[in-house]
């Protein structure tokens, strides 16, 4: 059974269809990188997996559990209860482009918040876990700082630690380096690379093609709300078939060659 199973995912805003039937699986421990121009629907797809966006058709399963909606025997689609969905979200960690740390809490408290407030773990245990994770992302010395004092790269590493603190089965990365100054991108990618090596199941939406080739087990190229091409990085990057993917690679070629 795949860890993530997406079947015919459809979403529209009023008349505009932004996801036109997306289907793919992610196996346990696999790293899937999603590429695509802005407006291709890749971030929306990612947000659907965590149910930050509602979707109107198809289904998503994490480790066999349907996310967001269940289908009754009569084929009727019903939204699951808020508490059930919250429970499912615990298994999916998400890291955002804009970090979205909680500015009123210290770094340590940010990482502890999930275990404490969602999982109800004892404070001492939660703190030990949080310190472990901060050490892992190299920010133990910043534990008592407020996020506003940290650089973008540091904030994003805290974001990763905060998501990991929920001990999720799956991690989603939504253009996590796009808001960073170029010199800060490396430290974040390093942490993600380490996670991949440890066997975390990951979906990464990014523009870092070099990173995609290095770390990804598989690349999916999306455009206009649909999957255009997919395959192992070496093949697909060397021999893009569609014009749209070729065009996309040409635009980001600079990044590709530089790194």
């Amino acid at each position, binding site marked *: 059974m795949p860890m993530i199973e997406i079947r015919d995912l459809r979403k529209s805003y009023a008349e505009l269809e932004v996801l036109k039937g997306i289907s793919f699986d992610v196996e346990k421990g696999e790293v899937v990188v999603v590429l695509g121009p802005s407006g291709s629907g890749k971030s929306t797809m990612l*947000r659907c997996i*965590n149910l*930050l966006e509602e979707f109107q058709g198809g289904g998503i399963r994490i480790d066999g559990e349907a996310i967001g909606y269940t289908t009754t025997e009569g084929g009727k689609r019903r939204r699951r209860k*808020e*508490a059930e969905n*919250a*429970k*499912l*979200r*615990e298994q*999916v*960690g*998400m890291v*955002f482009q*804009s970090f*979205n*740390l*909680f*500015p*009123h809490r210290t770094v340590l408290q940010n990482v502890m*918040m*999930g275990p404490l*407030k*969602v999982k109800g773990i004892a404070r001492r245990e939660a703190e030990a876990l949080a310190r472990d994770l901060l050490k892992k992302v190299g920010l133990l010395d910043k534990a008592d700082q*407020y*996020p*506003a*004092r940290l650089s973008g790269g540091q904030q994003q590493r805290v974001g990763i630690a*905060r*998501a990991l603190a*929920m001990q999720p089965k799956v991690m989603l990365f939504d253009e996590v380096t796009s808001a960073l100054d170029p010199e800060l991108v490396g430290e974040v990618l390093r942490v993600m690379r380490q996670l991949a090596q440890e066997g975390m199941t990951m979906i990464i939406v990014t523009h870092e093609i070099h990173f995609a080739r290095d770390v990804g087990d598989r690349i999916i190229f999306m455009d206009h709300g649909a999957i255009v091409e997919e395959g192992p990085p070496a093949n697909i990057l060397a021999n893009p078939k569609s014009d749209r993917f070729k065009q996309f690679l040409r635009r980001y070629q600079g990044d590709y060659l530089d790194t």
Partner: protein
Amino acid sequence: MDFLVNLLAIWARLYPSLVSGFAVTISVALAAIPLALLGALLLTPLRMWGGSIIHAVTGAYIEFMRNTPLLLQIYLIYFGLPLLGLYPSEFMCGVIGIAMQHAAFLAEIYRGGIESISQRQWDAARAMGMTWATALRNVILPQAGLRILGPIGNQLIILVKDTSLVSAIGVVDLTMVGKVSIERLAVTLEIFLAIALIYLALTGALGAVLRIIERRVLERIG
């Protein structure tokens, strides 16, 4: 020099009534402030998340309170409640009137604060598996609270000044002491100076304290 001697003589003579007037003013403020803060705390969730009827009723209350003079609200309570067989003291009428209007203003401040927190904070909280209520309590409200410290402080300073309206229904507060003394002693400037200085010290001190608190909190979180 003569003026100064004269001034001090008048102030000395007025001292007991100034103290008692000051005590009444402070009492009105101290009674009305918690009532207003709590009243707003009650109004805000009804206004924001109540069903359509509750939303409309609380909205109407807030708008009516914000767009009519406080003096009339106090009159309505003071002259209206006896018709219902209720006879609260002048002091209570003043406190209730002030608290009712300021609760409406504060409710708008609370709402503004909550709405000013970005959707991304909701996303981050819910992505961690927080329910709506958990996210509201742990992520949204603390941030909104910090953000509205300044506006709440300004509103409370206005409230302190508004306590002077209780003199219009016969409460002998600082303003009333001033009015009566001016008429009785037939000196204006010296008495006005005393009253004005006391109010100024009160609002100035409150403002300074609130600014210090605000700065402390905000410099931590940037």
